[in-house]
Each structure stands twice: as structure tokens, then as C-alpha cells.
């Protein structure tokens, strides 16, 4: 059955342009948390040779020369625009898997009598019109191939006008096209695997497609074997309509400034626990372990370096923010060393299980604050995250990340609506 992958073009930049049309046709980057690196680039910026992840401070000269506009990540805006886009696309198939903030798969089983390219063009124009986001569509027999088809649509390979349907190509045309694409473009083939494949003479997608799956399995893994099969139009990955509950929940940020003392680190860690625990409860899970870690900036080689994490098994799985915070802060006190400039802290909730099947322990001494947690989650859903929080998260927040260039949250705050004269 054919599968479509729909992907928003330079999604964060496109979201910004919907509300700030002056940015249209101009070079724009969106920076990561803390205004660190480029996480989205407009085509104009890509044309200047700026790579994904380039630190903002390295672009300063280029930015001045070409008038690059840099914006902080406005996640509230991107999340709302993503929900709108996904909702529009869900009208085009009952089988939708939302894969990330800016891309989703649509299963097109039963659409055999449709002209899929026309169907895909209708999706593109409706999303563009309703939400304002330009998207590209790739269509093929498997998820891996539809990702590749999407790449072709973006790069206008195979004469694509924002849509590339690989199922329309003859075998010879397909070979010729895939031979021109580097193996690193394949979904799941990262830089390290690309290099290892190149060492075995596999440079193009076509070469990987022609490789013997059994040999690949022996020399790499069953995952890469599956990729080879998928490239040969043999579906191994199905559309997952319901997002499976996460096995781990992480929450970490770069700290706004370098942090030296334990007190602000404790506030940061407590805040990350609160964010992760809220997600934990939202998916109906409890955590059996919590990991806490802190580190200095590895790029500042002249400064003393320190990096340490500690995993704390919990006597009883929990979804209670206060309990998890106590455990994380206990761990933090054990790994903290004075005299270092800390740049990042984070926590990971692990060994997640279903909250309803929680096993009570014989020696359990703590009671879950289920009702309190429910009240916290509901209050924060209504009045904004952090309205009700534990005092451990602090009030000074000297460590919060920098988002100095952030655009208004046009769709989620009444006082920040776009203005018309």
C-alpha cells in the first residue's frame, strides 16, 4: 500500500513567516534553546552555506553581511501550528502517524482509484491556505522510501512540484534516481553508518538497495537489514496511529548562564523534574528510576571540565512530582562538586510502567499525592505551566535559558495577538 510522508518546509521559519510576512524571501534562522545554534534555516540561509547546528556566534559576520534575522525558538507557536497542520492532514486518510512536530505519515490504502499526485497536491494547497505552511509530499511503497521521496520532492528531483510519487517511476528510472542520492539521506542511516557503508563501497541509496540483506544483517544489524528491505519496497514498518507510551522521559536544558552554586542547580533540576513528571502522568505512567546529571561546557577546553550522572532506583515506582524531586535532589547533592562552571543539567525518568498496575511494596513508607498531582496538572493546564509548583523550583531563576529574540506567541496568548492596522 502506498504511504505518503508530508513534511513542513523549514517548519519553524515558515511558522514565523505566517505572522511576520516581512521575513518572506529574507534569510532567517531559528536558534535552539538558549539562542545557541541554528535549528531551522530558511532557503536563503541554506544557500549561504550555513549548516544545521551552526552556533549563532560563528554566524555573526555572515549575519551582518547578509542581514540574517535570528529568532529564538517559539515552541508555543510551533506546537499550535503543528496541531493545525496535522489536523488538516488527518482529513486525507484515516491512517495518520504523527512522526514529529513537522512531519506525518499517511497510509493510502484504499486510495488505489485516486490519482495520488492530485490527492497530494490538494493536501499541499489546503495546508498552505488554511495554516500558511508550505509542505512537500513524498509517496512510495514503504515508510523509508516515502521519506526518500519527500527528500526528492524538496530538492525538486524527478521533476517534482512539491510532490514526488516514486510508485510512478519505472524500475530503470527509480535506479537512476536512487543512484544520484547519497546513502546518508536514507532514514536511519546516520553519519557513522554512512562512513561504515562507504568503507564497504556503498555510497549511494541504489548501492544499499542492491546490497544483500543477509550480509548487511551480519555486518551491521537487523535494523539496517530492515532498511534494505524497505528500500526494495518490502514494508517492514507499519503506520502507528497511536503514539506508544514513551519508555523514557528526558528533560534537560542548557542553563542560561554558567552556574557555579548548588542552589540554582537544585532549582533547575527541580523544574526539569516537574516538567518530566507532568508528561509522565499525562501518559499514565509511573517511573521506577530517575537519573540526574550535570556537566560543564565541553567546548570550553580551557575551563576545568566535569560531567557526572547518577541513576537512583526508587523503592517504589512513582508519578509524584514531590517524591521524584526529592530523589533527584538527593542525587544532585551527591554528584555536585564546587568550583566548576556548570552549563547543563538534566534528568531522565526511566523504567516506566503503567500507573494502574503499580505494585505496592511491603515496606512502602511514602503515600502518592495523586489528588494533589491532579490539581497541579489541571491548574497548570488552565493558567500556564509553573502556576502551581513546588518551592524547590525556586523563585529567582537565575539559570533560565535565554530567549532574547523570541517572536510573540501569536496564537496562544491574548496579549500577543498579531496586529492589523
Amino acid at each position, binding site marked *: 500500500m502506498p504511504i505518503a510522508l508530508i513534511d513542513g518546509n523549514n517548519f519553524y521559519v515558515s511558522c514565523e513567516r505566517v505572522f511576520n*510576512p*516581512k521575513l518572506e524571501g529574507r534569510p532567517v534562522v531559528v536558534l535552539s534553546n538558549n539562542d545557541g545554534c541554528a535549528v531551522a534555516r530558511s532557503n536563503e540561509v541554506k544557500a549561504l552555506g550555513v549548516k544545521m547546528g551552526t552556533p549563532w556566534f560563528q554566524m555573526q559576520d555572515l549575519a551582518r553581511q547578509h542581514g540574517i534575522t535570528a529568532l529564538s525558538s517559539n515552541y508555543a507557536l510551533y506546537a499550535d501550528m503543528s496541531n493545525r497542520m496535522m489536523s488538516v492532514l488527518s482529513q486525507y486518510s484515516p491512517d495518520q502517524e504523527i512522526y514529529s512536530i513537522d512531519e506525518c505519515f499517511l497510509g493510502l490504502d484504499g486510495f488505489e482509484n485516486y490519482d495520488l499526485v492530485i490527492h497530494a497536491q490538494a493536501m499541499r494547497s489546503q495546508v498552505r*491556505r*488554511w495554516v500558511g505552511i508550505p509542505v512537500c509530499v513524498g509517496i512510495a511503497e514503504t515508510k523509508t522510501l516515502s521519506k526518500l521521496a519527500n527528500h526528492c520532492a524538496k530538492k525538486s528531483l524527478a521533476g517534482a512540484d512539491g510532490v514526488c510519487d516514486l510508485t510512478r517511476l519505472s524500475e530503470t528510472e527509480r535506479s537512476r534516481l536512487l543512484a544520484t542520492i547519497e546513502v546518508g539521506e536514507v532514514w536511519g542511516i546516520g553519519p557513522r553508518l554512512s562512513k561504515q557503508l562507504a568503507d564497504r563501497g556503498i555510497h549511494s541509496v541504489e548501492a544499499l538497495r542492491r546490497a544483500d540483506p543477509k550480509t548487511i544483517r551480519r555486518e551491521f544489524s537487523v535494523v539496517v537489514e530492515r532498511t534494505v528491505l524497505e528500500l526494495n519496497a518490502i514494508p517492514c514498518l507499519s503506520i502507528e496511529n497511536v503514539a506508544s507510551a514513551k519508555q523514557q522521559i528526558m528533560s534537560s536544558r542548557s542553563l542560561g548562564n554558567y552556574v557555579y552554586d548548588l542552589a540554582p542547580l537544585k532549582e533547575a533540576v527541580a523544574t526539569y523534574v516537574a516538567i518530566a513528571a507532568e508528561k509522565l502522568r499525562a501518559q499514565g505512567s509511573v517511573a521506577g528510576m530517575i537519573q540526574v546529571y550535570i556537566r560543564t561546557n565541553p567546548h570550553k577546553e580551557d575551563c576545568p571540565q566535569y560531567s557526572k550522572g547518577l541513576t537512583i532506583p526508587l523503592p517504589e515506582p512513582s508519578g509524584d512530582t514531590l517524591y521524584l524531586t526529592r530523589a533527584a535532589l538527593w542525587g544532585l547533592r551527591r554528584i555536585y562538586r564546587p568550583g566548576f562552571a556548570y552549563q547543563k543539567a538534566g534528568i531522565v525518568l526511566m523504567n516506566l510502567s503503567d500507573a494502574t498496575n503499580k505494585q505496592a511494596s511491603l515496606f512502602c513508607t511514602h503515600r502518592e499525592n495523586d489528588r494533589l498531582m491532579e490539581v497541579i496538572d489541571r491548574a497548570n493546564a488552565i493558567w500556564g505551566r509553573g502556576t502551581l509548583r513546588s518551592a524547590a523550583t525556586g523563585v529567582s531563576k537565575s539559570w533560565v535559558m535565554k530567549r532574547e529574540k523570541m517572536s510573540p506567541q501569536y496564537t496562544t496568548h491574548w496579549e500577543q*495577538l498579531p496586529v492589523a492596522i
Partner: protein
Amino acid sequence: MACGVLTPRGQPSGHGGPVFPEAGVIHVPGCPLLARPVPAGFPSPATDYVETRLSLDKHLVEHEDATFFVRVQGNSMVGFGIHDGDLLVVDRSRDPGDRSVVIAVVDGQFMVKQACRVPEGVLLRSSGPGHGDILVGPEQELAVWGVVRWAIHPVS
């Protein structure tokens, strides 16, 4: 959150099974049914007539995914009943007709104007003191960002 708890009518709960056995107790968000405990005595004669309470959100927002709110600044559209500070409900999914009030993008700026087809192109009309009309000729591209469906104006 408005929740209804569905239990079988005419049967005291705890005896016969739920209406939908596989689901047990069903929470229906936004469902107006029996949000209160069922009276044990004489049943309310109105329960068969309960309807969803009117929602302004549903009334004003026809296409949720395509609807955005925009704030008005200035009095260029007073003649159309659109005042400084009003809240506009803008639907991007609608086709602008002749004389629709729209959000137009002029030199990268959002403007609320009435779009009128004229032989020379499209005339973006204002109707406030000291505000002229703008003619967008056929050689210029007129970007209509969305159609203004409602202007919400506070009265007291």
C-alpha cells in the same frame, strides 16, 4: 470540565451492567447528560430534553484549524464598525468575495481593509477619517491573509 457519567436509565447503578459493557463508565467531554447525580425520587421531567449549552466558540469559529485572532490597531475601519482594540476572528479557509473585509498584507504589514474589485485591480478601502484607499494594480500581487468573519467589540 463538563463530564457526563452514563449509567443505564431506570436501573440503579451497581446492578445491571453499564450501557456499553466494554467501556464501563464513560466520560464524555462536553456532554450535557446527567452531570448531576440521578435523583432517587421522582425523575426530572426535563432529562429527555437536555441539549448542549450554546458555545460562542463554536458559533464564531467555523474552521478551527484555519481560524486566527487578530487585534485591531487604529480607527481606519470605524465606518465598518471595527474599532481600535477590537478582536477580529479571521478565517483563512474562506474565499474572499467582492467587498469582503479581509486581512491583507501590504508591504509586509497586516491591514484590515475591504477588498473591492475594480476595473484597475483591487481597491483596499478604509472608512475612517484621514485614511485613503489603496489600489493594488494587476501587476502587483495582493496577498489576502484571511477573511474577517467577526469583529468583537467590548461595550461595557
